[in-house]
């Protein structure tokens, strides 16, 4: 979707056209889910938060400047919701050690292997990589999830996050370096 088409659709959304908003949702729902998953780790929470973010975006769509791309604006809403969600989770943990122990590991990024015939060793390695990924900063996780696991091109990532391609490369370099160090720290050899 180019900026002009998107701008025209958003103008319709501003007039309360929900069908127009449905087409925006269809276009961006998957990256919204992946990015939320990068923040909160649990698929059901990621789906819920991404939907809430679309609801909030529609409610405040009149504030949106149509000369700009929709997704970076939407992403700031999504990110705030995810941060609030994580803050609540942390507060809950402070309340109860038992709950904290129970919730430990819930921020693990769930990974699936492409081939069901993968060996047990390989699967174990992938689970450990998923856990190492979960321990990265959200900023590092988001770029790795988009590039490594969803195969978005650099241009697509730049458009989604509203950053230049050079920044995509430098952030990928930092994030992959952090993942490598995290794997080394966990004693994972690959």
């Amino acid at each position, binding site marked *: 979707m180019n900026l002009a088409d998107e701008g025209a659709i958003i103008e319709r959304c501003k007039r309360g056209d929900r069908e127009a908003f449905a087409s925006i949702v269809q276009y961006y729902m998957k990256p919204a889910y992946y990015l939320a998953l990068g923040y909160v780790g649990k698929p059901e929470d990621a789906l819920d938060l991404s939907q809430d973010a679309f*609801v909030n975006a529609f409610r405040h769509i009149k504030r949106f400047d149509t000369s700009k791309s929709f997704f970076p604006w939407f992403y700031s809403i999504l990110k705030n919701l995810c941060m609030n969600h994580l803050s609540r989770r942390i507060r809950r943990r402070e309340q109860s050690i038992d709950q904290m122990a129970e919730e430990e590991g819930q921020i693990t990024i769930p990974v*699936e292997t492409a081939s069901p015939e993968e060996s047990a060793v390989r699967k174990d390695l992938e689970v450990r990589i998923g856990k190492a990924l979960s321990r990265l900063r959200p900023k590092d996780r988001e770029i790795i999830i988009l*590039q490594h696991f969803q195969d978005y091109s650099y241009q697509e990532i730049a458009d989604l996050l509203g950053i230049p391609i050079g920044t995509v490369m430098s952030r990928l370099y930092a994030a992959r370096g952090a993942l490598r160090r995290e794997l080394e720290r966990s004693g994972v050899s690959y």
Partner: protein
Amino acid sequence: MERIAEDVFKPLLMGYLDGELTELEVQRVEEHLQSCSDCRTELEEFRRLKEVTQNMRVFVPDDKYWEEYWSHIYNRLERKIGWILVSMGIILLLSYSLYELVVGVFLKHDIPMVVRIGILALLAGLCTLLVSVLRERLFLARSDKYERIKR
């Protein structure tokens, strides 16, 4: 390679690894790799990491959920409108009840003064709390507490 040049150059290794560079940039990277064993080693480590993660996928909900994704949002939008109408109704009815209560209490001379003062204090307290919460909500709506978080 000097430190500053290295900082600028190393991110290009990512583009090289993912096949995202222009021909000119590829040529520049390859020329550098011939003379820099550190970068060759680092590139090889990143390549191994990429290989090991290339078959991995984060959990993706099944197609059925994506088909219903919009209807979930539509229902939530509708529910928000419902809540706004319910809230408006409650506020109107409560305001009217409060008005009736205040008028009733202060016009009836048989109600003891202590009860009148108690009700007045209760109402004043509730109004103060309401104004305080509204002011806080308004402040939060105007400012973004995560604005310092950079992408």
